């Protein structure tokens, strides 16, 4: 842990400050487990299961909110570019009976480029979020960077850092357009050639053109690459 750069600590500190300094705050804890595996040359799948729980609304508490199961099919179209199609089902009704479950379809295009030992990735997504009473169309753009923290290559036993920010626009019949912004940071460890562990924090400003909501996430991920 001592190898974590001071700048990362400062960033995390700032993130937490922003969230605490405002009203209308929700805090979540969201662990996930995902599996990546190749199917054919240039074609791979990703399975993910994640669970979101409230940890702060008006006060600290711990209450399950939803469970997501998702699957992405990814096709490499260049060495540094890919397209993907995703399906996700969100179980929400089981946890909050006045809320609906949701089916989400995602189309994605991604391009990466490297500069020194930092890798940058631009990701464009279009989503259809379908629930029994409403269909929302969402468009998102994310820029992410990631780099190994020990040397120029990521080896087993070493750590890495990821930072990203994403802009989102949601459109639905009868609703005004909603704009969101997210900032995310992660620190991860390559435990062995197939396994990674990540912990991170995310800050979201949702619907900032109308009634701003501040949302704070504590994230953990376990990633298996077969």
């Amino acid at each position, binding site marked *: 842990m001592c190898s974590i750069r001071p700048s990362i600590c400062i960033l995390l500190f700032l993130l937490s400050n922003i969230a605490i300094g405002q009203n209308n705050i929700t805090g979540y804890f969201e662990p996930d487990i995902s599996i990546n595996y190749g199917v054919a040359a240039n074609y791979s799948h990703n399975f993910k299961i994640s669970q979101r729980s409230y940890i702060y609304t008006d006060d600290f508490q711990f209450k399950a909110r939803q469970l997501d199961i998702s699957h992405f099919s990814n096709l490499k179209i260049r060495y540094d570019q890919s397209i993907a199609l995703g399906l996700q089902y969100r179980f929400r009704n089981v946890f909050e009976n006045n809320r609906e479950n949701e089916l989400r379809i995602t189309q994605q295009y991604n391009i990466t480029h490297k500069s020194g030992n930092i890798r940058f*990735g631009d990701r464009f997504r279009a989503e259809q979020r379908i629930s029994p009473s409403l269909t929302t169309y969402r468009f998102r753009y994310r820029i992410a960077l990631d780099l190994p923290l020990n040397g120029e290559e990521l*080896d087993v036993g070493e750590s890495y850092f990821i930072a990203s920010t994403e802009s989102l626009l949601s459109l639905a019949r009868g609703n005004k357009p909603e704009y969101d912004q997210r900032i995310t940071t992660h620190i991860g460890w390559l435990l062995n050639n197939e396994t990674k562990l990540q912990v991170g924090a995310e800050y979201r400003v949702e619907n900032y053109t109308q009634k701003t909501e501040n949302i704070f996430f504590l994230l953990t991920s376990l990633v298996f690459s077969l």
Partner: protein
Amino acid sequence: MYLSRILSLLFLLFGVLASAQNKYEREYRIKKSQFPEKALGYIEEKLDDAKRIRFYKETDSIKVSYEAKFKKDRLKYSIEFDEKGILEDIEILIKVVDIPNDAFNKINEYLKKEFTKYRIRKIQQQYPVGENTIEATVKNAFQNLMLPNIKYELIVSGKKDKRYEQHEILFGSEGNFEKTRKSLPPNYDHVLY
């Protein structure tokens, strides 16, 4: 309850990590004080007006090596030493225009034959010690001389047998192919790219 279970899982994973760590090959940054003294001796004076000086150590099952990287007179140098600190080669980051036309045409011919489509990501001009003395190699490299014994090391990403791959390919000073090595894709699927 839930949290404590996750915590114990984390500790378990770290335990596995600690015990498994030394079996794999590694490359990591080290301090100047951890760099072999002998190696520093060759390049100490070159480092005086250098910027962004970094030291690395690489280990795998058969070999330990050291690498110093820095920027000097607008050029990026990368100098490799063996376990005892003896110079192995000096590399300078260059661009396509720095390779003589004839040699570059030959390199392109090889790449066209090998890949359906390709892109050159990185080129380094290499000064191996080989038959030269270490002193001569250092002198030649820092004067950026174009000599018959230099080599060009290219990182090329391209499509080969319907797959997208990255290769590290070595050419002689005239553009003749010498050897190729497939580089493993970076272990980076932690962000859904």
